[in-house]
């Protein structure tokens, strides 16, 4: 039996060495890759042991804060789904989104933890004040009850006062309801405001008009405005098949006459129109805190028919509500586009887009829209409102309803862009939401 025991001892040693080798392998050579693996939630759980900084709105309301429970910190979002996309969530299981992700290094600086360090490395993160206005955001949430988005910003500074997308989700319920949110056909996780791409429809005429004026056109130029305008074998038609005789550009903008804008687009030329749209920020990278999608302009080899349809905001054109709001902010800001931001402490930055004269011309035309054109519903007593409606024809349902504008027209303080998916005419639902947003934004500061 001694020989057996000797062999057995050899086998035990062999197994012992194999086990220790494997333990060594996972603990040292393979450790770096394993620690960085996406399914490894240690850094996130560890974070729960530290207090994240609080996220405040610009008016001092708490949007997200850490609350201690059972020795760990839990993230609380007092506004529920209202700030879901802008503020995001910080979940140990599903990671972080929104400002929770973008400002993570401030809210929760990486710890200097170590086995040998005796002093506590647990420190509280830094608080952050965002540009978002809780009352404006709540107003948007109250008004927008169908899928869509509302963006409001200060034209002079680019500070975003409202960034609302519906449907949303409750950031406190991420850990329990993530799967059902992800499976929801209405896609509540999509931030429609910054990352939703839509056909702009007539709201794009702001950019077409700016390009036209920038390249030698005038608001008083006259065009024939038939019900149907034929170009390259395709037809551009007016809404409702109306013919307007011969009208000025100013009138055509106020009534959103497609056949005139098709001709203006052809006259401006493809290169100039696309270049202006790009200068307005469409399809261009922004240094924005949140994930966003850039719009899509037609390919450079577009034919006249595509150009004509692009000029009226249809064709393959896609823009995000944030981009559209920035286009309006550029006009409101005298032709200089403010870079958007969600941080109060970020320095103001602007980019030249069009001349001040052009911006003034577009502003006048936008004032007419609200005064006597398609956007009368956006009018407010005592305030000159500038705006533009958009009714974007989309396959499968009613048109998307747009309204984008600013107020007061002579000294713009707030830009608002509204889109209601399948909301019908832009002059109705979207204009109403726009008006209430402006009323809320300017209300207390006096008119």
């Amino acid at each position, binding site marked *: *039996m001694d*020989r057996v025991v000797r062999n*057995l001892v050899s086998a035990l040693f062999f197994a012992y060495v194999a*086990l*220790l080798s494997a333990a060594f392998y996972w603990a040292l050579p393979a*450790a770096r890759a*394993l620690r960085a693996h996406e*399914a490894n939630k240690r850094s996130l759980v560890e974070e729960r042991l530290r207090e994240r900084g609080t996220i405040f709105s610009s008016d001092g309301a708490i949007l997200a804060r850490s609350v201690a429970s059972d020795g760990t910190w839990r993230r609380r979002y007092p506004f529920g789904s209202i700030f879901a996309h802008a503020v995001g969530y910080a979940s140990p299981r599903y990671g972080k989104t929104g400002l929770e992700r973008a400002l993570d290094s401030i809210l929760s600086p990486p710890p200097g933890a170590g086995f040998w360090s005796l002093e506590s490395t647990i420190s509280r993160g830094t608080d952050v004040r965002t540009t978002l206005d809780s009352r404006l955001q709540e107003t948007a949430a109250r008004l927008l009850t169908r899928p869509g988005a509302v963006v409001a910003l200060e034209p002079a500074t680019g500070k975003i006062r409202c960034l609302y997308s519906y449907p949303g989700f409750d950031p406190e319920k991420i850990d329990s309801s993530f799967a059902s949110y992800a499976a929801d056909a209405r896609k509540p996780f999509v931030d429609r405001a910054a990352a939703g791409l839509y056909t702009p429809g007539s709201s794009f005429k702001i950019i077409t008009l700016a390009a036209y004026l920038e390249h030698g056109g005038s608001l008083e130029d006259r065009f024939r405005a038939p019900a149907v305008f034929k170009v390259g074998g395709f037809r551009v038609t007016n809404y409702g098949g109306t013919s307007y005789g011969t009208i000025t550009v100013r009138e055509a903008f106020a009534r959103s006459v497609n056949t005139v804008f098709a001709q203006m687009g052809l006259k401006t030329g493809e290169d100039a129109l696309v270049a202006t749209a790009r200068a307005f920020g469409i399809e261009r990278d922004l240094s924005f805190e949140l994930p966003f999608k850039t719009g899509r302009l037609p390919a450079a080899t577009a034919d006249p028919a595509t150009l004509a349809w692009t000029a009226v905001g249809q064709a393959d054109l896609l823009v995000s509500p944030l981009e559209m709001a920035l286009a309006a902010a550029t006009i409101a800001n005298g032709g200089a586009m403010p870079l958007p931001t969600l941080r109060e402490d970020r320095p103001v930055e602007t980019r030249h887009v069009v001349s001040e004269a052009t911006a003034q011309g577009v502003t006048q035309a936008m004032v007419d829209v609200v005064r006597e054109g398609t956007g009368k519903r956006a009018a407010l007593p005592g305030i000159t409102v500038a705006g533009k409606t958009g009714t974007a024809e989309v396959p499968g349902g009613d048109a998307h309803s747009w309204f984008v504008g600013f107020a007061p027209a002579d000294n713009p303080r707030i830009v608002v862009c509204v889109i209601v998916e399948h909301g019908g005419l832009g002059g109705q639902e979207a204009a109403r939401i726009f008006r209430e947003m402006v009323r809320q934004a300017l209300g207390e500061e006096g008119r």
Partner: protein
Amino acid sequence: MWLHRLRLTELALLGLVFLSIACGFAVISSSAVQLALYAIAPFIACWAFLCLLAPQSNQLLLPIAALICGLGLVNQLQISLDYFSHQLLVTTIGAASFVMVLALVRFRPSVTSYKYLFGTLALALFFLPAVVGITRGGARLWVAIGPVVFQPSEIARVFFFVFLARYFSEHQRLLSKAPVLKRRAFEIRYLGPAVVVALLTLLLLVYVKDLGFSLLILVTFLLALYATTEKKRYPAGGLAIFALGLVGAYRLYGHVRTRIDVWLDPWPDVYGRAYQIVQGLFAYAEGGTIGRGLGNGFSSLLPAVNTDMVLPFFAETTGFAGVAVLLTAYLAFALIALSAARDASPYGRLLVIVAAGSMFAQTAIVSAGTLRLMPLTGLTMPFFSYGGSSLISWFAILALIMFHTSEQRSWTV
């Protein structure tokens, strides 16, 4: 002479174990000395009864078991106070079973000669969960009687070891002297048990749904057969049959396929079927060389953190160093037991070989599973994992092993 009966080496070593686990508790708890006293007390009781009932038995084995058990208690306290309290209670009951078994074999040695009774009991208990068992974590190893849930296989283990040691030591001559060529009948007849048990364990694999458990039973049996016959073809043949059967089971049974698939390549399904194995590897990686420190582990991230995944969790807090200490303790236990049973009766020696070998095999199988050396299995680490029936039965086996050992006189085996 009476001084020798006091087993002072053992007592001194238990004192050292007390000091080391007190240090461990001190990192996590403010009442370290008290907790360490609770933890060492059952072993002091064992020591006292060893002085009375088996004063000549080896003095190193109990302190090593106490060290493993103490580290296990420290580990449970890292997870939760509830687990620790339960484990402490079970350790105390385990010490009682140690004393009872020791007294039984001391005063009624003939009890172990009812080998067929033990064999039948073991077999019945092994298959009991397959009939009336409940499934936990995919394995059907538990039986519930009222509020008490236990693993019959853990109790069966004690009977199984005694049966194997008795049966094979009594049939040693016949088994090992069976002619190879002239009388094939004998050859087949005595190869028979190996084949039968290999097939039985495959049956267990199918019904109990645990690869590690079936493999352990087979390895234990083949160990006894090999120790008796000294013929390597028995274990080789038995393992070959098991491997072939495994290939068949892989094709036929989903649960076997899952375990093997995620072992071969866990990465495509890290949130699903491979969650447990991958989380275990993360824990080893987090531990690194010396670990995050006791009490700093992420117990909530590891499934089955106090049973199957107890080693990765210990590794996370104490690192590779902790794993090395623990595995070395198991190796030392097996080597010392094998060495200290040299002068025992053929039955006693075989019992120690089977029990100590099986204990290390079980440790190796469950550790290898978490280290991705083989498919992950649901076994406990003897004396270390959280458990009721398991811990108690290992105390009983410790008594059986120690009873057949004697003082270390040299380090040859």
